[in-house]
């Protein structure tokens, strides 16, 4: 099965959907691995929000494309290079600091992005954004609080959080390399960038953490379907059943 995405707006929506589904899958990996049951349940909730969000976004993209493919076909039948999620969200759950740092950097990005998209000329995207913003508000509360706790908790937690941030910051640069599609789809890309940096700096500052200058890796952009090595492993697990049994219905 060769999945195609022809319409530019559909591609913009697919980027959001891919980012949601890959982050959801990463968070699902934390299920039964939480530091407490409470936290296990909290991360599952965030993951469920993201899977639901991805599903809705794929449906919107599919409608724009004339329903040639279903959400499941987009998820389970595209290869690595046909995925357009930001590299940030495919980074592994190295430890709890990575989970939180990745979530914080994502949530700040998603909050401003979906705030802007709630005035999108695409009514489906605008409508969904309103709902999504409530989820993000809660997730952001969670990642913000944990950033405070880890940054200000113990010397070890501060050090681990800083290490996670230093790694993940490498994948931030590409978020703001807006292309023509972004400029058409996102109402105010420059504001997205400005808000992101000012919020990140504020929260890291209050948490005794730093945004160190890190050189982005010389890798091509997620908009061209380029990913880190982690992505192939994630997909090989996620897509195993539909690929191994192509005739089966699930």
């Amino acid at each position: 099965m060769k999945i195609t995405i022809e319409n530019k707006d559909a591609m913009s929506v697919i980027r959001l959907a891919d980012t949601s589904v890959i982050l959801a899958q990463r968070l699902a990996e934390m299920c039964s691995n939480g530091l407490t049951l409470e936290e296990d349940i909290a991360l599952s909730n965030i993951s469920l929000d993201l899977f639901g969000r991805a599903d809705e976004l794929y449906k919107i993209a599919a409608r724009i494309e004339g329903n040639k493919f279903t959400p499941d076909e987009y998820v389970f039948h595209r290869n690595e290079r046909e995925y357009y999620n930001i590299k940030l969200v495919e980074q592994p759950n190295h430890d709890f600091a990575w989970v939180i740092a990745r979530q914080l950097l994502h949530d700040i990005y998603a909050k401003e992005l979906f705030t802007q998209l709630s005035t999108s000329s695409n009514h489906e995207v605008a409508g969904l954004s309103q709902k999504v913003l409530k989820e993000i508000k809660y997730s952001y509360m969670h990642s913000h609080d944990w950033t405070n706790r880890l940054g200000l908790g113990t010397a070890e937690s501060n050090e681990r959080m800083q290490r996670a941030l230093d790694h993940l910051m490498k994948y931030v640069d590409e978020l703001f390399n807006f292309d023509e599609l972004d400029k058409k789809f996102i109402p105010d890309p420059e504001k997205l960038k400005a808000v992101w940096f000012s919020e990140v700096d504020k929260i890291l500052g209050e948490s005794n953490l730093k945004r160190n200058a890190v050189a982005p890796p010389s890798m091509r952009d997620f908009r061209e379907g380029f990913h880190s090595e982690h992505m192939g492993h994630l997909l090989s697990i996620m897509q195993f059943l539909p690929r191994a049994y192509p005739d089966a219905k699930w």
Partner: protein
Amino acid sequence: MDKFEQAFNELIEKELKIEPRDWMPEKYREHLIRQVSQHAHSEVIGMQPEGNWLLRAPSLRAKQVLLAKIQDEGGHGLYLYSVAETLGISRQEMIEQLHTGKAKYSSIFNYPTLNWADIGAVGWLVDGAAITNQVSLQKTSYGPYSRGMVRICKEESFHQRQGYEIMMQMAFGTPEQKEMAQDALNRFWFPALMMFGPHDKDSAHSSQAMKWKIKIESNDQLRQKFIDHTIKQIEYLGLTCPDPNCKWNEETGHYDHSPFNWDEFWNVVNGNGPCNQERLDHHKKAHNDNKWVREAAAAYALKTEAQVA
């Protein structure tokens, strides 16, 4: 018999609930701590066999359903730890007892999940058996446990249905899928029936627990109820019950079953099941690897509370 014991007995007699501050015989308290903590651990360890397929769930719908279900198990573990805490044991102590092997959990979770249909079989048979037991426990004599069971039963009402839905998909799917469904049923049928515990005549704890109305129906009664209910569900799927002696008995008005392999059951209880070591190691690893996070949270709470005061 002193007046406290008399009051306790009267409450039990009238089928009223025992509450945390009531006087209760030490043995009653001990029995409950053992049973409730084992129940809590079972919910939590039970997250693992299903978690084994979570990342491979084959559709967006299946992923969300399974994650929501496993999350429920964690929530139920949490309710049950809270119930046990009202009896005077901390969650930390219970987790230590789990890690040292002093506390047990349901042996069923020491079996592996080897194909996607196993996720169906776990929901249908394992949750089905657990629900049969838990519905009965809603009437248990200890108030917090009883109320916890009411909530848990309500939340679990979707668990068995989602399992059976997977079984239908698999049994009515491609020949390969149907084969997986039969394979899952073959492996889970007897272990699920043995979940109800030893036969009444061999059950050391059961009779006292029934006198105290902690347990309302016996192991064998509950097991028979489950078998009688489940056979037509196997038939609907077009699958074969792995027990050739599972036939309707006109005389008893129930389905018969072959003798169970209790040697295997005790062998698994005593640590030699296919996944005992893996399940415990997984739990210990998650707990120990995150010690630094819990310490950070505690340190942060101390600092911020000091600021407020």
